[in-house]
């Protein structure tokens, strides 16, 4: 059984259709890259999978390990193993990163019938996870994403992913806004989490990231549909030719 199965997915926001029939199968252990012009629906797809209430699924099915994903609340999807690294991570003033991470970890553990960790036990776990993103403990006492730089926010998403150990990680432009060192750290972090039990969907605009995290498949999303799928060499082709040869729309007009 495949890990994720998307069949003919249509989704709309405020009655305007954004996803227009997406089908995609992702198996455990695979890394899929999703590329495509601005506004083509990449983040929408990511958010629909994560359970954003603003998007209405009008047609199609999505299953995770055979279970109907669309029937679950966002938190139930997290418990089931879905993780979305946001393109624009949300600031939560007044809640420390440490508290937030422990709460998230324990809520997921609880839902899976596992023991919760007390603050001291969690600290040990956190120490290990911080290594994944090459961070010191200072960041833990700051409020979640509050006043973080763009790069710090992205790194914090990867830290959360490392703590929650999802089955399906969707990374929405986690590479955007990162300097070269941070990009390497984030990519290394993702690579450390690559495993035969886990699948990763990378939404990106840049080949640069795919040099670090080599995908098994590359898909091009345009106008709410997957217009082309291929291996890692497709990304290189896109880098060279742009999207126009696939979409028929001149680059400028697609923005």
């Amino acid at each position, binding site marked *: 059984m495949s890990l994720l199965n998307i069949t003919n997915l249509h989704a709309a926001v405020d009655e305007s259709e954004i996803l227009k029939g997406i089908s995609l199968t992702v198996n455990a252990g695979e890394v899929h890259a999703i590329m495509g012009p601005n506004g083509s629906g990449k983040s929408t797809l990511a958010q629909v999978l994560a359970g954003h209430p603003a998007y209405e699924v009008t047609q199609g099915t999505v299953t995770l390990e055979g279970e109907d994903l669309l029937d679950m609340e966002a938190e139930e999807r997290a418990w089931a193993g879905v993780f979305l690294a946001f393109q624009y991570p*949300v*600031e939560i*003033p*007044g809640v420390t990163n440490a508290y937030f991470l422990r709460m998230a970890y324990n809520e997921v553990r609880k839902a899976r019938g596992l023991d919760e960790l007390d603050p001291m036990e969690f600290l040990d776990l956190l120490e290990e996870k911080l290594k994944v993103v090459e961070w010191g403990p200072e960041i833990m006492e700051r409020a979640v994403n509050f006043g973080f730089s763009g790069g710090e926010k992205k790194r914090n998403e990867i830290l959360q992913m490392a703590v*929650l150990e999802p089955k399906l990680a969707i990374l929405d432009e986690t590479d955007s806004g990162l300097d070269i060192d941070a990009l390497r750290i984030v990519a290394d972090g993702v690579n450390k989490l690559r495993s035969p039990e886990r699948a990763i969907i990378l939404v990106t605009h840049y080949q640069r990231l795919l040099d670090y995290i080599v995908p098994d498949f590359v898909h091009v999303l345009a106008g709410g549909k997957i217009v082309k799928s291929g291996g890692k060499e497709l990304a290189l082709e896109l880098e060279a030719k742009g999207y126009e040869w696939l979409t028929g729309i001149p680059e400028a007009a697609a923005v």
Partner: protein
Amino acid sequence: MTTIAAVPPFAELLDAPRPAEPAWLAARRAAAAERFAAVGVPSSRDEDWRFTPVSAIANTAWTAPGVSPEVTAADIARFRLSTGSLAVLVDGRFAPDLSELPAGVTASSLHAAISEGNAELESHLGLVAPIAMSPFVALSLATFTDGVVLHLAEGTTLATPLEVMHLTTTAAEGALIAPRVFVTAGTGARGAILEQFVSLADTLHVTNAVTELVLAPESWVEHVRVQRESEQAWHLGFTHAEQATASHYRSFALSLGAKLARHNLHARLGGEQVETLMYGLYLTRDSQLADTHSAIFHDQPNCNSWEVYKGVLDDTSRAVFNGKVFVQPIAQKTDAKQTNRNLLLSDTARVDTKPQLEIFADDVKCTHGATVGRLNDLQRYYLQTRGIGGRTAQELLIWAFAAEVLTEVTIAPVRAAIEQIVRNRLDEMLG
């Protein structure tokens, strides 16, 4: 004793026979009674009470509290905020058996202090919080029978806070209780006063409490006030701090009890280099109303005041916030900042918030801001995607909103006790 034409609902209290009192007090009481007779209970036409309907208080003939049932140390243990000294007032009467006032702590019953003769009281009682502050302050001075006097001696630092517990019992039903607390801090004295209003029974009563604080130069006083009275009760509270040069007054007020709670918190900055900090949190539910009227009188130059009040409102509850800041022409280099932020948990809760800055000096920094908002959907969704759903997410976000002001309570165990009170209430509110 002077007899005046009493306002009927308070006749019994105003005309009650009183033990012999010093002439200065009798005169002040008479003036207060006269003032109250002239102004009466405020109506909604009164600008200061526009959103806070108290006229119904005048529909009941309030009595003095009856004989209180026995209260044991075990009954009050659960309310304590600290392990320091404790002065307990049961239905407004000082309870020596429940109080723990170790030697060296200067605290006593107000009634006793008056009988013994106390120069500080003679120069200040009823004058720090003047009868013009509110009709209810006049009523308090005219009717009070007891209270607590606390003194922080010059140059000393209190090791543990002084806790004053105002406790009501079943005997409070139908009664008006008028406790007064009088605090003096000598030059350079430092200490914390914890004042609490709690109920053992769900009675309908009026608490009309006045607290006067006199801060000598360079004194440092933290004043924590927790109001969690019976949700049937009327709570009227008036606090005035009179601050001398380089004194520091920091107030934290938590309001979660009473059907209607009003707190006037005034500070007069009567010397230079004075610092006044006012923090507060109100949590309201059902049809509760919590009203804070603060007033900061910048009478001298080079002083700072800083005020942050937050509120979380559910159901059809209401909150009123009015923050007055007066900066006199001579009060140059005043730095005053005021913030009031409200979080509504229901569509039917309402907040009336109004800053009122009257600035007559030109070289000052005065800012204010007020917000009324709801839980942020995007933050909620973000938490959900991390496995934190439903009520847990809601509670976390409300806590995040409220906890900021709680961190301003400087004494760790007291802060922890207050955090627990807030957590418990939020728990109940989210049901």
